């Protein structure tokens, strides 16, 4: 509850102040938010499978809409990611001089509030409301501060995702109407909904398309590369770092339990789609020349793996998916920030125009290297553990699928190293741009990311333990056991 309110108040506050002060206000708010989050975490009982810190206020009882919030392990990981990421994102905007910076920051804060709302909601309708609410600020962020051709692209992005969410709404209402007794949108009631046969399949597909568009899973991904490219750096970070996780969270928390009676054969289709997406996006990423596009496609590929892993619905896959969501969030923010730093300095994102940047930016090269390696899933970095668990899950699900999705470790190396090499290595290009010294905010942002990359890589159980009991609970719930 507090987590939702802080950003909104801060968003209003930030509007009052001028540029520099607004930045300070926004940063303070996000740090405060993170601290609150840590306080919650410290009081969080990882051994308790129930949803904790629950609270509920009536909002629109006629519609079954209650302001119900609560945190379980899965949500806790997502909240951590959101609030860490928001600090990073605001910090990363420190050196940007956008026109209307205050508005920009308050949009980011609104976004943070909405995202926290999504992860905190234990009421289906509230989940939907925050889900949509998160869409509006990002629409403005991309639309106002975006690059070339932004209008068309944001339009497409918005309508596409909105269409998906409407399907989700449909599914939510449908489940609501099947809840036992007095209909309710409370999660704990909705999971008891009695839906069978083809209806269940319909619900499943409606949820799936909604989440698949958000994540995005092949073939619902076509909005993504353009949007990521055109958005301002912080917008891209929000989109890829956190918003995408809404889809993953939704799949785990909402889709799966709601459509539990649907035929498992549907998941085969989903997994095949996800795996096709892994390879498809990876292959495309190999040939892209815009650094942001490469990262965007890599994101599709990585998310495909997460989706495939999750939808095996075994514990390793779920845990791996949650862990990797966290990791991917951190890494992709780092990568996009790297792209932004390069763009700030040499005014282009075209890889063919870069080269030899490592020479005058050693510290940068080093930080970039670690983030890149995290994305390639090299040991010592966070990506490794996540991919290990996910690949293990897909492999156990089906050998061929496991092998095909395993190709990602090769392709990922191919395109990420290509980016690194083209940008950082080789002789210097004569375009007057050099990395030079990084500013303190740039150092701090990348530094935090690098520390996280390594820390989670060495101690993945830090994250895994948080969600462990909740995942167990979810699995036992799916096996027909009552909520413990």
């Amino acid at each position, binding site marked *: 509850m507090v987590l939702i309110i802080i950003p909104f108040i801060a968003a209003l506050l930030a509007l009052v102040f001028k540029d520099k002060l607004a930045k300070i206000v926004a940063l303070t708010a996000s740090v405060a938010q993170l601290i609150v989050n840590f306080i919650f975490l410290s009081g969080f009982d990882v051994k308790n499978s129930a949803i904790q810190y629950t609270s509920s206020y009536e909002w629109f009882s006629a519609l079954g809409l209650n302001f119900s919030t609560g945190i379980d392990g899965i949500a806790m990981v997502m909240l951590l990611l959101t609030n860490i990421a928001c600090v990073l994102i605001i910090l990363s905007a420190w050196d940007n001089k956008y026109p209307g910076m205050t508005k920009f920051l308050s949009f980011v804060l609104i976004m943070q509030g909405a995202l926290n709302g999504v992860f905190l909601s234990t009421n289906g309708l509230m989940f939907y409301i925050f889900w949509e609410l998160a869409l509006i600020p990002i629409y403005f962020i991309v639309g106002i501060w975006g690059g070339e051709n932004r209008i068309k692209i944001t339009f*497409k992005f918005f*309508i*596409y995702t909105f269409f998906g969410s409407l399907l989700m709404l449909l599914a939510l209402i449908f489940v609501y109407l099947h809840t036992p007794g007095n209909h309710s949108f409370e999660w704990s009631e909705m999971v008891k909904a009695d839906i069978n046969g083809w209806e269940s399949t319909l619900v499943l597909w409606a949820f799936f398309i909604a989440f698949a568009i958000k994540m995005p899973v092949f*073939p619902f*991904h*076509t*909005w993504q590369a353009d949007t990521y490219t055109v958005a301002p750096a912080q917008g891209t970070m929000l989109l890829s770092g956190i918003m995408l996780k809404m889809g993953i969270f939704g799949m785990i928390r909402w889709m799966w339990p709601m459509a539990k009676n649907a035929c498992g054969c549907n998941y085969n289709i989903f997994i095949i789609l996800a795996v096709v997406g892994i390879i*498809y996006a990876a*292959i*495309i990423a*190999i*040939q*892209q020349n815009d650094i942001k596009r490469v990262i965007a496609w890599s994101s599709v590929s990585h998310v495909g793996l997460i989706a495939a892993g999750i939808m095996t619905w*075994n*514990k*390793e896959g779920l*845990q*791996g998916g949650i*862990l990797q969501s966290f990791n991917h969030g951190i890494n992709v923010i780092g990568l996009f920030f790297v792209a932004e730093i390069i763009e700030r300095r040499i005014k282009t994102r075209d890889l063919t125009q870069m080269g*030899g940047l*490592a*020479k005058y930016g*050693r510290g940068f090269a080093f930080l970039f*290297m670690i983030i890149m*390696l995290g994305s390639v899933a*090299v*040991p*010592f970095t966070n990506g*490794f*553990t996540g991919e*290990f*668990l996910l*690949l*293990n899950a897909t*492999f*156990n699900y089906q050998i061929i699928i*496991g*092998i095909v999705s*395993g*190709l990602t*470790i*090769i392709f990922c*190396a*191919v395109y990420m*190293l*290509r980016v690194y*090499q083209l940008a*950082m*290595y*080789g*002789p*210097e290009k004569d375009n007057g741009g050099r990395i030079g010294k990084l500013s303190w905010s740039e150092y701090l942002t990348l530094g935090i990311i690098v520390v996280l990359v390594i820390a989670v890589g060495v*101690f*993945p*159980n830090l994250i*895994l*333990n948080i969600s*462990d009991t909740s995942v167990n609970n979810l699995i036992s719930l799916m096996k027909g056991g009552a909520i413990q």
Partner: protein
Amino acid sequence: MGNYIALAIFTPLLGFVVSGLLGRFMSKNITGIISSTSVLVSFVCSIILFNHLSNGGDSVKLDLYNWISAGNISIDFSFLADRLSVWMMLIITGVGFLIHIYSIGYMHHDEGFYKFFAYLNLFIFSMLTLVLGSNYVIMFFGWEGVGMCSYLLIGFWYTNKEYGYAARKAFIMNRIGDLGLLIGIFVLFNTFGTTDYQTIFSGAASANKGTVELICILLFVGAIGKSAQIPLFTWLPDAMAGPTPVSALIHAATMVTAGIYLVARSSVLFVSSELASTIVLVVGLVTAVVAATIAIKQNDIKKVLAYSTVSQLGYMFVALGVGAYSTALFHVTTHAFFKALLFLGSGSVIHAMSGEQDIRFMGGLRKKLKITHITFLLGTLAIAGVPPLAGFFSKDEILAKAYYGNGIVVFVLLALTSVITAIYMFRLYFLTFHGEFRGTEEQKNHLHESPATMTIPLVLLAVLSCIGGFLGLSSLFSHHHFVDEFLGKVLTNAHIPHPSEIFEIAVLIISVVLLAIIILATRRYYISNKNIPISIEDETGVERILSHKYYFDEIYNTVILKPIEWLSRFAHDFMDRKFIDGIVNISGKGVTVCGKYLRQLQSGNVEYYLLAMVVGVITFLVIYQLV
């Protein structure tokens, strides 16, 4: 004892952190000394552990913490020091230490000095993790780690574009192997429910035969990538782009033998799976022959050595394939000595030649580079298999095991390879150190012997190359085969009969005679007759094929790279833009088109409106009546 493991592993890591973060602020010598000391500490720990084990102590296990736990997967971050890993540790830290010392001199003029040492330390750490990990996942952890360090070090001189490509190629080819290994680990996990060595090996006997075969093949795929075997060997010659100490440490002595270690480590599994062993044998054999023939036509001093390494690795795999695991390890050891020596020697030559690597522009260096010359000669003799230097014993043993373990064909091919090895090594030696100097005047004036930090390791390695062979004297000379006795307790060697004395003597005599002929012939051909290699374009027939390395790179280019690039463009430009996005856009456009046509209905004319209204009414009436 566990503390020594921790000390051995984490001192290099500490060295990495210190030299990486603070190296910029410290003088080069201090950085070098810190890094080298950290490896020395590891070496000392290794000796202590070795002592412990060779005195009959038990394997030491060190549990750090639970690394990953999710569902059924629970992986401990723990280390196991048994005889095999300690043996590898000794090689890694020993040779590693010498190469660190050498690098202080070699890299002295480089601005990335501290970075270089940081990477080297990181490599030592990863390599130790690889050999000390107590389960396959930790091993894989180190496995990937050394691949990453290798990438970093090959691309060390990043301003050169080619070097960058070489680094990438190495990493990606390794990754292909890694995928096999990873899947192998998954199968292991599926079969045994754990990846812990001890549990797996004790349960191996009861496991399904077919599954074990599959596991072995998958593990070997990993080994192919890391140890540069056909078809994934092309990265190793390219990896010579890295600084020479790196080539010596990573691409000759240690990392590339990780594949051997992996197979040897899994000897329990391999020994019972015939198919996998056969594959290992065949791949090793083919690689040994192919790489050796390519080496004959190479003109880059380091590339000759690189192909030689590939070839020697093939040798080791043959040994593994016939089930002589400790023999393979023996060759790993001797190879580490003489190949590190040769690389460091070539580094010294390159150092003297101001970066020139082409042997066509060398010659007559023996006068200026006395220590280098002598040590290099010893290395050459060792690799060629001149008794009683190190290479003779290990190669001899492999030949014998192959003969008794498999048959005459393998033996003949290996012997042939051995001959070719001698030919290209002496070609290299003579062209470099004998004859007249063929470089520029400037280079000639600049020729000088390397500093002591470089020559001392050379001398030490030369000594090791000379005496290394006595670790495993063949039955002809002694009944005390040290390597076999030490490692036999952890490796499950296949039962191969001891070679007869006649065989031993025959091999000894034939090899000595053959070597003498080869030395004389090559000297005559290259020095007396001044047959200096010519450029590739002028060559014909077989020579041309050899110079082009059997066109491996070209084939990969057309068969794999080009199609993927094409596919990438196709997927992006057509599939994505036109097809998938097309569908999305059409559904969007459909709306606008509908809108466009539907709005024509709104003609603006009242009469028409009225008519439309009436039509509406009639339609509804019809629906009303019909339905």
